[in-house]
C-alpha cells in the first residue's frame, strides 16, 4: 500500500515561459540522443491510458528506416468521463505543439497531425491562431515541421490508434491487425509516433525541468503528474492535476460527497472500484491506471444502471468488424437485462463473465478487449444489484 498522499500539481497547466517557444528552442539545440535519454530517464509513460513508455515508442520509430514519418497527436478524447485534453488544448496548446515538434525532430518526421475530436470543432479557430504562431517560430528556428489539424467525426473507435489512421486516410474507422505497430506502419503505412495530447505536454515539461526534477513526482512505476477529469457525485467536479500513485481513499476524501459507493477509474473501459477497496487501490500503472476519467458514484446510484449505460455505449460504439466485440457487447447487454427481469437465472451471469473473458483475449483491438474491465468489476462487486 502506498504511503503517498494526494498532492495537487501545477505542471501541465503551469504558465508558459516568458518567451514564446523558448523551451522548444533550447531543446532543439540538444541532440536527439540527449532528448531521448532525458525522456527515458524521466520514466514517462503514455497518458492515453495504456501507459506505453514514451521514450521506447519514439526510439523504435526513430530507428525504423524511412524518409516519410509522421507525428500524430491523438486528440480524439472520447472515453466517457474524460475531458482533460479539451482543457489542455484550450489553455496550453503551445505546449502540445512544442512536444509534437520535439518528437518530429527526434524521429525525423516532416509532418505533424492532430486528430481532433469532432465535438471539439469549436476550438479550431483558436488552435489555428496558435498554429500560425507556432509555424512562424518553427520557421525562425529552422524547423521544417508543419502541423495540421484533422477532424474526427464522432466515432469512439477512432480514438484507437490504428482506426484513427484509417479515419485520417479517408477510410472507415476500423482498427488494423497488429503487428505491424505504428512505429513501423502507422499513418499512410509509414512509421508514426502517436501520443496522447497530455503526453506531448509532459515531454515539454521534462525538457523544461530536467528528468531529475520531473521524477520527484509520482512513484517508481508512475512518474509525474496526471490531469484528472473528476465527475459524478462530487461537489467539485472539474479538471485537477494530481500526482500519480495516490491511494483512492485519499482521492475520495478530497472529491467525494461523503457517501461514495464506488469510483469508476478510467471511464467506461476502465475499472469500477467499490468502497471496500478504496484503501488498497493505487491510481497509477502499478494499480489501476486511468486516462484521466474518475467517475464518482454515491449510494443513490444503481450500479446495474451504470453498467447498462456502459454496455449500451459499447454496443453502439464497437466498429462492428470483429465478432467478439460486435456480438459480445450485444450479448452482455441483453444478458444483464434478462437476468434483471428474471428471464434468465442468476447463474447466467457466470456465463456472461466467461464471455467477457473471451472478449478480452480475442477481440481485435483495445475496445473489445476492455469491455471486460468494467463488466467484470461491476458484476463481481455488485452482483446483488445485478440480480435484484
Amino acid at each position, binding site marked *: 500500500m502506498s504511503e503517498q498522499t494526494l498532492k495537487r500539481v501545477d505542471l501541465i497547466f503551469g504558465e508558459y515561459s516568458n518567451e514564446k517557444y523558448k523551451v522548444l528552442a533550447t531543446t532543439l539545440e540538444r541532440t536527439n540522443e540527449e532528448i531521448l535519454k532525458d525522456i527515458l530517464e524521466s520514466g514517462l509513460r503514455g497518458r492515453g491510458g495504456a501507459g506505453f513508455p514514451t521514450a521506447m515508442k519514439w526510439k523504435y520509430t526513430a530507428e525504423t528506416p524511412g524518409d516519410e514519418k509522421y507525428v500524430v497527436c491523438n486528440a480524439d478524447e472520447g472515453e466517457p468521463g474524460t475531458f482533460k485534453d479539451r482543457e489542455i488544448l484550450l489553455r496550453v496548446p503551445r505546449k502540445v505543439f512544442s512536444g509534437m515538434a520535439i518528437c518530429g525532430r527526434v524521429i525525423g518526421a516532416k509532418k505533424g497531425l492532430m486528430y481532433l475530436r469532432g465535438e471539439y470543432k469549436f476550438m479550431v479557430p483558436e488552435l489555428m491562431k496558435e498554429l500560425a504562431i507556432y509555424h512562424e517560430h518553427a520557421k525562425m528556428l529552422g524547423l521544417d515541421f508543419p502541423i495540421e489539424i484533422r477532424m474526427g467525426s464522432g466515432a469512439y473507435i477512432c480514438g484507437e490508434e490504428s482506426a484513427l489512421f484509417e479515419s485520417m486516410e479517408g477510410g472507415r474507422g476500423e482498427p488494423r491487425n497488429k503487428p505491424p505497430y505504428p512505429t513501423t506502419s502507422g499513418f499512410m503505412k509509414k512509421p508514426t509516433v502517436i501520443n496522447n495530447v497530455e503526453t506531448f505536454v509532459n515531454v515539454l515539461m521534462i525538457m523544461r525541468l530536467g528528468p531529475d526534477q520531473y521524477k520527484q513526482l509520482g512513484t517508481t512505476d508512475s512518474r509525474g503528474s496526471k490531469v484528472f477529469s473528476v465527475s459524478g457525485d462530487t461537489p467539485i467536479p472539474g479538471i485537477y492535476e494530481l500526482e500519480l500513485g495516490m491511494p483512492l481513499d485519499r482521492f475520495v476524501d478530497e472529491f467525494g460527497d461523503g457517501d461514495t459507493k464506488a469510483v469508476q477509474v478510467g471511464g467506461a473501459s476502465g475499472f469500477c472500484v467499490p468502497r471496500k477497496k478504496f484503501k488498497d487501490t493505487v491510481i497509477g500503472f502499478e494499480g489501476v491506471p486511468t486516462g484521466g476519467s474518475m467517475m464518482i458514484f454515491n449510494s443513490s446510484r444503481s450500479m446495474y444502471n451504470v453498467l447498462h449505460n456502459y454496455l449500451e455505449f459499447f454496443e*453502439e460504439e464497437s*466498429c462492428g468488424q470483429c465478432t467478439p466485440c*460486435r*456480438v459480445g457487447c450485444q*450479448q452482455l447487454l*441483453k*444478458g444483464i437485462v434478462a437476468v434483471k427481469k428474471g428471464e434468465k437465472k442468476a447463474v447466467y451471469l457466470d456465463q456472461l463473465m466467461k*464471455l467477457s473473458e473471451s472478449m478480452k*483475449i*480475442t477481440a481485435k483491438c483495445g475496445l473489445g478487449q476492455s469491455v471486460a474491465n468494467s463488466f467484470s468489476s461491476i458484476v463481481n462487486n455488485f452482483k446483488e444489484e445485478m440480480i435484484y
Partner: protein
Amino acid sequence: MAKKINLTIDGIEVTVDEGATILEAARNLNIHIPTLCYHEDLCVAGNCRVCVVEQEKVKNLPASCATPAAEGMVIHTNSMKVRMARKHIVELLLSEHNADCTKCYKNGNCELQGLASQMLTGDHLFLDLVPDKKYTIDMFNTAIIKDDSRCIRCQRCVRTCEELQSVSALGVAYKGNKMKISTFFEHSLFEVVCTNCGQCVNRCPTGALIERNYIDQVWDAIYDPTKHVVVQTAPAVRVALGEALGMATGKIVTGKMVSALRRLGFSSVLDTDFTADLTIIEEGHELLTRLKRALVDKDPTVSLPMATSCSPGWIKFIEHTFPEYLPNLSTCKSPQQMFGALAKTYYAQKRKINPKDIVSVSIMPCTAKKFEANRPEMRSSGYKDVDFVLTTRELGIMIKQAGLDFEELPEEKFDSFMGSSTGAAVIFGSTGGVMEAALRTAYEIVTGREVPFDGLNIVPVRGTEDEVREATIKIEKVKPEWSFLEGVELKCAVANGLAHAKTLMQNVRDGKATYHFIEVMACPGGCLGGGGQPIPTNKEIRTKRKMAIYEEDLGMPIRKSHENPEIAEIYKEFLEKPLGHKSHELLHTHYTPRKRY
C-alpha cells in the same frame, strides 16, 4: 532467399519464410485451424477471430491468419483457452445469424454450418439476437439475392468487390450492433454499380449472398408436355461441374454432362460453343471491318481498340464506369444470347416448332448471364431469347435432385444441329480464349495461312490472373484483298478480373497504351472462375480448370471456328453472310450508359 523463422506449433518445430503467418505455418504441418473471414484470394481481414491460437507468454490470443510467425514463438492451436474462445465466437456468430438451415439455399455447403457441427454448438450458450434485428432480404435483383439475416459480417464480399473487381458495390455501413454489409444508400443490388459477376457469391461462407435460382421454373418447363425445352451449355461448365458432384477438380465431364441433361428431360441438348464459334466469325469480321475503316477509309469515327462483349459482367462494368467507351465494345451479343435468338428462329424453323413453345435454358458458369438474359433488348426473336439461366451449381443440384449417379453416367454427344463446336469455342472459358480463337480465324481469313504459332497455341495471349497481358501479332504476306493490313502489327491486350480491366481501360483512356483489340472477362481466370461455378474457388482450383480447358481444345478434331461445318451451314441456310442483315437483327446488340453509383 527469404529469412527463415523457427517456431513451435503444438509441440512440433517448424521453419517458415519470414512473413508467413501462424496459420500458414500450421497448414505446413497439416494442423487445421478453422477460419471464416480468411480467403486465399483476398487480403487478410482478421475480423471473425475464429482462427485464434494461444501463444505462450502472451496474454491475448492472436488471430493466426493475421499474425506473422516470429522466431521462437510457441503456439498452441487446441488448448483449453483456445477451445473455449473459439466456441464462444462461433456461438456469438450463430446468435446473430438466422440459423434455419433447412430453409437455406446453402444448406450443406455452408462454412458456418460446418464449423457449428464441428464444435457441437448445440448448447445455445447465448441469447438469440435475431428477433431484435430488422434484417432485410434484397430480392429485387434478377441475378443475386442478398439476405442480411444470414450474413456473418466477415467482409469477404466487400474485399472481393473492392480488391478483385474494383467495383465496390458492396461496403460496410453503420457500426456496432447495426453494422451491416450494404450498398450505396442501401439501394437494391439491381440499382447500384453491381455487375452481377457473382464473385461475392463464390466467396460468401454462408447463404447471405446467393444466386437467384430458377431450378423449379426449369423443372416446370421440362414437365410441361406442350413445351420443347432446349438447353445450351457454356464451355467453362464442362470443366467444373464434376466438382459440384463430388469429383476431383479439373475433370472434363462434357459427355457425362450431356447424358445427365438428357436424363433430366431436356428435349434437346445443345452447345453454347456453337455460337461461340459464330461469335468468332461475326466478331472477327467486325474487327477487320473496323481496321479497314481506320486504315483505309481513315474514318475518324471508328472506335478502336475494339473490345470483346462476351462477358456480361464486363458489359455492365463498362456501362457504369467507362460509358464513353461503349462504342468500342463489339456489337456482337454474347454466345448465350446469340444462341437464344437462334433457338427461337433458325432452330424453330428447321425443327418446325412454334417458337412460342420453345423454352430456352442455358447452363452458365456465371451469375451475370441471368441479368443479361433479362435485358429488355434481348428479345430479338420476338420472344425472350433465353428464358432461364442456370449456374453450374444449379445444374449440380438438379442432377442430385434427379438421383443420377453422375460419375457412372455414360459419355454422350450433343444433339445436332447447334451442337457441334471446335477447340476455339472451348477456350472461350479461359481468359485469353476469345482473343486466341479470334486470331486463329482472323489471321487465316487475311493471310490464307494458319497463325504462326506451334500447334495453333497462341500462348502469348493466354491470360494470367496477375496482370494485363499484352501481345503483338505481325500480319505478313496477306491476300490481295487485305493488302492494307500488310506489315501491320496487331496489338492485343487481355484482362481478367475487373480490377485489371479497370487498369486496362484507364491506360487506354489516358493514352498510355494503344491497342487494336482487347479481351476482357469479368472474373478471375475468365469464365472458368465465374460467379456461377462450384464453391470453393481459389487459384489452384482455377488453374486446374484452365488446364482442363486447354486439354479439351487440344483433343478437338477441329480447332478453328470457321471450320465448324454447322457454321458454314447456318450461313448458307439462314444468315447469308457475316455482318449481314439477319446477323444484325439477331446476333448484334447495343449498350446502355449507366451511372457511376
